[in-house]
């Protein structure tokens, strides 16, 4: 029983990380209707900025994080305006290919700037663990899950109650009509990218203390984050986090109790989750079914 609970707890910890990055994917999808394959690399890049500020320049954690978030927002906005916007008019495929190009470009740039060496980023949470009946629970992991849930609530409030949030939804749902009522669509799509990059930076800051920072840190996480986002419903922030946690726990239990899965088939298991959801419940657990008249 202790082993079972420990696997659940450890799955929640991994799931919190998947969920945090899935949130960023969901946000861009909601704001601009595309999947950003470079999301993981952008998050890693942001984490490197945080690392540089805290380790190389000796900044205290919180101001460094604030500056990292600001730079990430500006960076995401800039990437959208310079790279994505020019190809946005055509088919979605073009944007997707551009984001794959960005993935390679950013990964190369990171190795070039910071080398492939593994780095450590400190966690804002204490590294202590609480022992509950033989099950070790790390405060750091509780922090990760807590932050993800906090971000979901903030996002919900943002989309529902702020003018920018409303305009973002309008721009994503129906760009043409949004433009007619005076929404500056291209600018807002950029804001969407900026916000998603900021969320990515948060995900990176949460991931790095456990996974450790190198240029490929988010590549493995990204695939699980895709699975989490699809499982939860690609347009639902709540779904992203719930999907992440479910996936983390599910994969751990599968790996522990189903012998032939073990550690080797974790990734295929995650991919089959994507496939199964798309086949049987395309809207995911919390997503909205999109109905189009043809």
């Amino acid at each position, binding site marked *: 029983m202790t082993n079972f609970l*420990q696997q659940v707890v450890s799955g929640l910890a991994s799931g919190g*990380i998947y969920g945090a990055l899935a949130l960023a994917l969901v946000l861009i999808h909601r704001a601009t209707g595309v999947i950003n394959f470079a999301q993981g690399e952008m998050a890693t890049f942001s984490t490197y900025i945080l690392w540089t500020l805290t380790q190389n320049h000796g900044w205290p954690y919180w101001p460094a994080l604030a500056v990292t978030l600001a730079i990430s927002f500006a960076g995401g906005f800039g990437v959208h305006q310079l790279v994505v916007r020019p190809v946005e008019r055509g088919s979605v495929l073009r944007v997707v290919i551009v984001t794959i190009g960005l993935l390679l470009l950013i990964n190369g740039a990171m*190795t070039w700037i910071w080398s492939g060496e593994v780095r450590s980023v400190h966690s804002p949470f204490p*590294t202590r663990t609480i022992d509950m009946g033989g099950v070790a629970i790390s405060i750091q992991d509780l922090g990760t899950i807590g932050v993800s849930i906090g971000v979901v609530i903030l996002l919900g409030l943002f989309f529902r109650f702020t003018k920018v949030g409303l305009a973002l939804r309008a721009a994503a749902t129906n760009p043409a009509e949004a433009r007619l009522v005076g929404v500056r669509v291209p600018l807002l799509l950029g804001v969407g990218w900026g916000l998603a990059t900021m969320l990515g930076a948060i995900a990176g800051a949460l991931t790095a203390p456990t*996974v450790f920072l190198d240029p490929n840190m988010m590549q493995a996480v990204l695939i699980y984050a895709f699975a989490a986002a699809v499982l939860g419903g690609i347009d639902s922030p709540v779904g992203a986090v719930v999907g992440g946690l479910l996936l983390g726990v599910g994969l751990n239990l599968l790996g522990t109790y189903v012998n032939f899965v073990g*550690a080797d088939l974790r990734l295929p298991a995650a991919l089959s989750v994507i496939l199964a959801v798309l086949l049987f419940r395309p809207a995911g657990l919390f997503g909205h079914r999109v109905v189009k008249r043809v």
Partner: protein
Amino acid sequence: MTRKPIVFVALAVALTLGASALAGSTRATGDPGITPTSILLGGTVPLSGVASAYSAVAVGASAYFKYVNAKGGVGGRQINYKYLDDTYNPAQTVQLTRQLVEQDKVFAIFNTLGTETNLAIRPYLNQLKVPQLFAASGDTSFGADAATYPQTIGFFPSYQAEGWALGQYMRKSHPKAKIAVIAQNDSYGRDLLVGLNRGLGGGVAKVVAAQNYEVTASDVGSQIAKLKSSGADTLAIFATPQFAIQSYVFANKLGWKPFVITNAVSSASNIMLLASEGGQNKTVLGSVSVVFLKDPTDPKWSKDPAIALYRTILARYAKGANAKDVYHVYGMAVAYATVNLLKRLGKNPTRAGLIAAVDSMNITDDPFLLPGIAIKTGPGDHFPLSQMYFQQYAKTGWKQFGSLVSYKG
């Protein structure tokens, strides 16, 4: 359709070039890469990309060759070592190695880094009878397949030998140990585990649980939790740097304080430093690993003539190189062995002569290896290094201890 002629022209040109290259090689006297004043060696290392830290092995070797050249070279010949960037990608290794062999006409491929990369070029080099000298990998197959691939030889102790040494250590020093193993699920992790079991040799100390991880995994939290629940008191970490660090960190997170044994790749000083999480993680202290090179950061060698020479050579011929990086020492150790081999080839070095020399190495004075460690081979025995010492991690860094252990495959 309009493209077709161009394809034909290209094909024709390629064929002609290929034919002339073949013709050239049959007409030439003596082996490629040898002139009256020079010997050309070539190889690939990751100068960029995720594994670029390993490029130091080429920098160290190159610096040592320059030092030998300044003293007159080998038999009046200067050793030129050309290394190219394969970014640790076997596809690029193949392409660049072909370039080195066919265009640069190297005498031998030397010191190419990595397991997959070396495996990728092994059939090609053996077919052309180009020596594949000192592949920088501990994969057991580079030594074990000497009959099939006589042109190929590795350098450092095989992963099986490392695992075996750790098993022997556990058997003697912790005879009642219950060992849990976290290993990468490829030949690297498997060889270490096989070696460990062989070293334990059916004693009371044994492996009670083994978990592996896929290189594409994001973390090993689940595996470490499972290993903890096995009731083991010892953790064997056979991983690559990032997952080695994670193993320590997750054990600590679970409140598990096992005794740790680990192989050379998982135990570089920077790994231990990161894993100790600024001194909070005490599991790191007391870890036991194996070592065969003189560690330039170990105060024990601060007055050692070889390490002093190492610093001088690095300062003169590899400006800006970090002298604390033990990979540079590795480069010089392997270059020293190479110079020794080349000296034995006499006035007219040939590739066949080089392989004959490779089959009968007995170098007992490589100053960059720990005292007593010999580089020894025989016909069909392509494991140059099979001796090592143990080291234990303390607050100040790794400390070598105990007597020399020799692995007999």
